[in-house]
């Protein structure tokens, strides 16, 4: 009986406490930059697509919501012909971001992506691609990878030395 009255009193006191509800559309919570929300594809500083269509994100995806097809431009630079994420399946685990060798695929602090129609949840490449670099600045995969593309031959990348002619005898 005493405990019941004590409970009543304590619950009554809760009427004078702060309410924890965040009034969502008006008030918004702070989302940290690493919040795992809507997925984007980023570009490097020169404005080229970072994605090299290596399929690692699609392989890492536990729900198989990423579909892409690789193709090459005339200089041998790989890029995805199409890139499709089905956000009705995506669980926002961020494994694709971890798997990506070029920082192309990134998760952003945005979760307001409701749709009235189910097909609206499927994002194509033009929906995913953004103009900037996203979270990871100053990273250009082709500048650190020993791959020759347009404007960059072998050994011209950062921290690279010119290739050695292994058949030559000179030191």
């Amino acid at each position, binding site marked *: 009986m005493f405990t*019941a009255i004590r*409970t009543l009193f304590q619950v009554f006191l809760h009427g004078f*406490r702060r309410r924890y509800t965040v009034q969502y559309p008006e008030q918004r919570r702070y989302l940290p930059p690493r919040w795992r929300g809507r997925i984007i594809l980023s570009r490097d500083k020169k404005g080229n697509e970072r994605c090299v269509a290596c399929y690692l994100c699609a392989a890492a995806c536990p729900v198989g919501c990423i579909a892409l097809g690789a193709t090459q431009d005339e200089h041998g630079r790989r890029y995805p012909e199409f890139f499709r994420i089905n956000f009705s399946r995506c669980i926002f685990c961020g494994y694709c971001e971890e798997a990506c060798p070029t920082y192309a695929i990134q998760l952003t602090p945005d979760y307001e992506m409701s749709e009235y129609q189910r097909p609206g949840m499927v994002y194509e490449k033009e929906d995913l691609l953004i103009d900037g670099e996203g979270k990871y600045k100053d990273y250009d995969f082709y500048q650190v990878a020993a791959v020759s593309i347009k404007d960059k031959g072998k050994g011209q990348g950062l921290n690279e030395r010119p290739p050695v002619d292994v058949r030559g005898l000179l030191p």
Partner: protein
Amino acid sequence: MNPILFHLLTIVILLAALLTVASMLIWGERRLLALWQDRYGPNRVGPLGLGQVVADIVKILAKEDWIPPFADKAVFQIAPGVILVATMTAFAVVPFAPGLAVADVNVGLLFFLAMSSMSVYSVALAGWSSNDKYSLLGSMRAISQMVSYEVFMGLSLMGVVIQVGSFRLGDIVLAQQRLWFALPQFLGLVVFFIAGLAETRRIPYDLPEAENELVAGYHTEYSGMKFASFFLGEYVGVTLFSSLVTTLFLGGWLGPVLPPLVWFILKTVLLVCLFILVRGSLPRPRYDQLMAMGWKIMLPLSLANLLVTGAIVLAREGAR
């Protein structure tokens, strides 16, 4: 004014006010529970979320009114009406202000007890006619709860009746001009309040419903407006018991400065808030615990209260 017209007007206004209050209580209860649980509750529709009442009613009116094929149709349809009629009829004897009652009959208290017991028929019939094991379990619990709680609910009021010497609720209020019965009849107040919780099937004693055991208890099979009338009945019942506690123990319309009706409404609203607070804080007891508390604690307490009150009243009369 023509007395018949006056009475008719009182009845119509009372019914309209009761239905409004009962549907507003849906909103009030949700807001208050939210307040005590550090939330906001419905606050989007209209000012303070008051439009939620309209939204709820429109929604429930638009719902399909379905009668299961295995149910006993006639009884199934009567049951939700019984609870509304019984609880609203009981309001007829409540005096809201001096001279303002539908019928301040000389057996008002007995009439109230009879009518509030009628509401259990509704639950019993609903559970029986639904032809469903959860409903049946719910109504079985309701009946046993009524059997054990109705007894001391009546007895807890007899202390007041002994002190006043009348069953008329208007007389009971007038007898409290010097001292509210909440003090001399404190035990009676506590026991009656607990019995009221059990009678209206509110949360610590909502065993007939018991969402987490019996789906929804006796109204599992109900939908649409029939379901809503069970809820309306519950809320009217809460208002009824609050106004009864006000009348019997808290001096009814008596109070300084403010007009009598305002005092009555104020006290009743506070008690309704207490009902909601109890719902927000106490857990539901087990079936046997409920019975044990009813028969082993509440009944002896109310009997002792009755005996002591009777003895004191007799001793005073002897001294005179």
